[in-house]
């Protein structure tokens, strides 16, 4: 913070990084467009192979989240690779604090994957004819799940940007870590589809899952903040 060229507070710095990334994204629309085409393709595959309307709610919830996870694995790896490809990593390191970069990228990842997820969810519900009994719970799960995904994946994206075989590595690194998140989101989404469990309402039944998702997001963000320096610096 001593250096006058550096932004005055980390919130300003993070916003600057986020603005830069969003501007680049809006300029060539590469990542988001490709992601949405990917989602459409995957949906089509599922629709063709699984048929319409004869899936269990549990299977539907699982399918939706598996699609979301794969979309995230494809899209979120880009966050730091783009700096490497455009050779702007050094520039960012000189002009910002590591935490500004982390939070900027976190917000960028969150927004990108949220857009893709909203599109996925809408197409999924429309094409498979799923009836959502508790829309509020569904939307909350989608947002919280996206937060957990972005939180866990931002640090991993920074890690894979430092490796040589970046393409295939992100899913391998991220899926085993995200299994708790996947299980909790699937359960909560399931309750939003069926509305209730045997004994209690959907909201009460999925309270544990929502709590798990929230605390998971909190823990991965805190762990990332503590560890990000070591990945970012040489």
């Amino acid at each position, binding site marked *: 913070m001593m250096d006058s060229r550096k932004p005055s507070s980390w919130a300003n710095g993070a916003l600057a990084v986020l603005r830069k990334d969003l501007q680049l994204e809006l300029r060539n629309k590469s990542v988001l467009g490709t992601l949405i085409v990917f989602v459409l393709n995957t949906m089509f595959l599922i629709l063709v192979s699984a048929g319409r309307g004869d899936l269990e709610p549990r299977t539907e919830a699982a399918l939706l989240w598996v699609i979301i996870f794969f979309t995230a694995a494809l899209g979120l790896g880009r966050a730091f690779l783009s700096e490497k490809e455009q050779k702007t990593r050094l520039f960012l390191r000189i002009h910002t604090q590591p935490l500004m970069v982390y939070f900027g990228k976190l917000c960028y990842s969150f927004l990108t994957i949220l857009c893709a997820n909203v599109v996925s969810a809408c197409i999924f519900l429309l094409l498979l004819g799923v009836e959502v009994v508790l829309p509020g719970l569904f939307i909350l799960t989608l947002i919280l799940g996206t937060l957990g995904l972005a939180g*866990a994946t931002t*640090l*991993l994206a920074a*890690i894979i940007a*430092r*490796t*040589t*075989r*970046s393409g295939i*590595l992100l899913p*391998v*690194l991220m*899926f*085993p*870590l995200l*299994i*708790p*998140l996947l*299980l*909790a989101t699937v*359960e909560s989404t399931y309750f939003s589809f069926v509305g209730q469990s045997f004994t209690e309402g959907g909201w009460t039944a999925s309270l*544990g*899952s929502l709590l*798990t998702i929230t*605390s*998971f997001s909190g*823990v*991965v963000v805190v*762990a*990332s903040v503590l*560890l990000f320096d*070591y*990945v970012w610096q*040489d």
Partner: protein
Amino acid sequence: MPPKYKTIRLVIVIWMTLVLLGAFSFGGTWLNIPKVAMLEHTARNLYFHVPMWFTMMALTALSAVHAIQCLRTNSPVSDIRSRTAALIAVTFGMLGLATGSVWAHYTWYEGTNIWWNFDPKQTMAAVQVLIYCAYFALRSALDDPRKRARIAAVYNLFAFATVPFLLYVLPRQLESLHPGAEGNPAFSDITDPIMRVVFYPAVLGFIGVGWLLYTQRVRLARALMMLRSIEEDNHY
């Protein structure tokens, strides 16, 4: 090799021999176990399966501790220790999975063709093994040793932070037949006291074997590192 290390190694070897003798003592001997329906003599797997898990847990924690050390001091020896602990942990994890799967096949799923049924404990162990596989995949994708040490340590710790959630989430989602799970009696309620005579020494013995393998691999890796640096000195 320091004489103290040799002594400890000898003690562990003799100790494990005694544990094995105890584990397989049949007939009218003191350590013969009572026959329980369904379990029969498969109960002896307790002496192997459970200590393997304990050893894996201990090595996982050790790996994380040395990952912290590696980030704090940048020392290549910490990296070797962290990596070796992970390797031995994954070995014990796979052994634990194998013994558990065989045990379940001949007791819980007797008469069926099931070997694997996504029991929470099984799933957790499998995830742990997958995480370490990812850890080694990550290591192989990094060329510079210093960078590899640091980034692998970061991944190690990041994974370690997410594991507690598995403990919390899995039992809510998946039903379990495993002892100690919800509604199932725990180890202490169902086990004949005579089994403890072998079980507790077996836990110590397996942790000893884990320690032995771990120190051996660390010494080997350090020796290789030193040899390489001598070669480089001669080269220039």
